[in-house]
């Protein structure tokens, strides 16, 4: 194979103002982070609420959460994205529809769709982790919390959840990494995140290998930093005797 590697390609002008191709990657990375981080925060909140619901004595709440998990875990992510982007807007109230389809910049409406999609998809997975964490705690913990007069909300807030979250930091870390990887589906509805910018650079410059190599490196460094961040969090909240903390 006769391929001319040219790493200088990233510093060449794109022909738009003073922009170079590297700028595309930086902006793509920016969108990737903006999508994944916002979706993650929403997923964490919704997933935690659902996870708690799954452990409540209230049957209706528990089965609602169980149904949610089944639905969002069993439909492929791409299908969910197309539903949120192409289908759901058609069923919005008329005013909202006009706003979403015409008044919003196309990038913004794509952004909203992909964040909603990833957040709700990941919430189902977070829910299962939170539920597992709560159920792993000894029964005596809830008895102790009730015995001092805590109501159910206080029991979860002060006794069960702080322990459950510590237990599930490792599986949550992998969900956190997954949401960054999954955010690349946004490229399919025209949001110029990292993968989309990579493809575009490859097409414009014909330096496909360089473009994808750089993208790989960026994803890799990003993942390593996220893992670093999560293990910092884990150390920060570590408590002696719980989850491998020193005695």
């Amino acid at each position, binding site marked *: 194979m006769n391929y001319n590697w040219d790493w200088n390609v990233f510093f060449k002008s794109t022909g738009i103002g003073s922009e170079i191709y590297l700028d595309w990657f930086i902006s793509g990375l920016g969108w990737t982070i903006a999508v994944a981080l916002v979706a993650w925060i929403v997923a964490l909140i919704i997933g935690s609420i659902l996870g708690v619901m799954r452990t409540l004595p209230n049957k209706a709440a528990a089965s609602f959460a169980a149904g949610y998990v089944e639905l969002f875990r069993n439909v492929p992510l791409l299908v969910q994205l197309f539903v949120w982007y192409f289908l759901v807007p058609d069923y919005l109230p008329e005013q909202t529809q006009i706003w979403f389809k015409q008044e919003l910049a196309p990038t913004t409406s794509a952004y909203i769709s992909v964040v909603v999609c990833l957040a709700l998809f990941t919430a189902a997975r977070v829910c299962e982790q939170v539920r597992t964490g709560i159920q792993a705690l*000894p029964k*005596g*913990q809830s*008895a*102790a919390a*009730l*015995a*001092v*007069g*805590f*109501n159910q909300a*206080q029991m979860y807030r*002060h*006794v069960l959840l*702080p*322990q459950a979250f*510590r237990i599930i930091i490792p599986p949550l870390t992998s969900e956190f990494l997954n949401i960054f990887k999954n955010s690349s589906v946004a490229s399919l509805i025209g949001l110029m995140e990292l993968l989309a910018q990579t493809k575009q650079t490859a097409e414009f410059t014909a330096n496909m290998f360089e473009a994808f190599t750089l993208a790989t490196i960026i994803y890799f460094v990003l993942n390593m930093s996220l893992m670093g961040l999560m293990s910092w969090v884990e150390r920060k909240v570590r*408590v*002696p*005797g*719980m989850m491998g*903390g020193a*005695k």
Partner: protein
Amino acid sequence: MIRFNNVHKWFKDLHVLKGVNLEVTQGEVVVVCGPSGSGKSTLIRTVNQLETINEGEIWVDGVNVTDPKTNLNALRAEVGFVFQHFNLYPHLSVLENITLSPIKVKGMDKVAAEKQAINLLEKVGLAHKKDAFPSQLSGGQQQRVAIARGLAMEPRVMLFDEPTSALDPEMIGEVLKVMKDLAESGMTMMVVTHEMGFAREVADRVVFVDHGEIIEQAHPESFFTNPQHDRAKQFLRQLLTPMN
């Protein structure tokens, strides 16, 4: 202070409490004993409604706790409970274990709650461990912290479910000592235990439970020296043989 009126409880088909009638008066220390599976834990857990009942009534300090309209959280805040396995909160320090409920349930301010906690820790001999985490304490120390945690709510009654049976023998004494001091301070106590020394020395009354029924109630001295019922005799014999 505590009154059981014809209390029945079923776990599915299993009839675990069969018409229990019992009264514990203010300042009294009542020891509950009986064979394994006889319903002692279930009985004591119904007092603060950690277990619900199917029939009858339970009154604590003039409140019908089995009335659905009763605010259980308020009731439980006034009834201390000490568990066999301590159940300290592992993610909180000793001090935080004790101050958490006074602050969150009673709305006590943090400084006052910590001051009170340190007082209580001094009483149970563990002030120097206030910053330790539960996993860094021995079983006996954990149980003493658990007692301090219960006392921090300034309860009217303290309930103990086999507080020493998960402990190594050399740690039982330190916990019983704390309980004895508490009894001497006038606390109303209901204690499930097989510590006969404690019962003899501290209890005002021993209640013997078998198969979900109260078979015998007596002053400790007469219960141990002269049990009336065959099942009580047999129970005491087993308790006293070294190989039990």
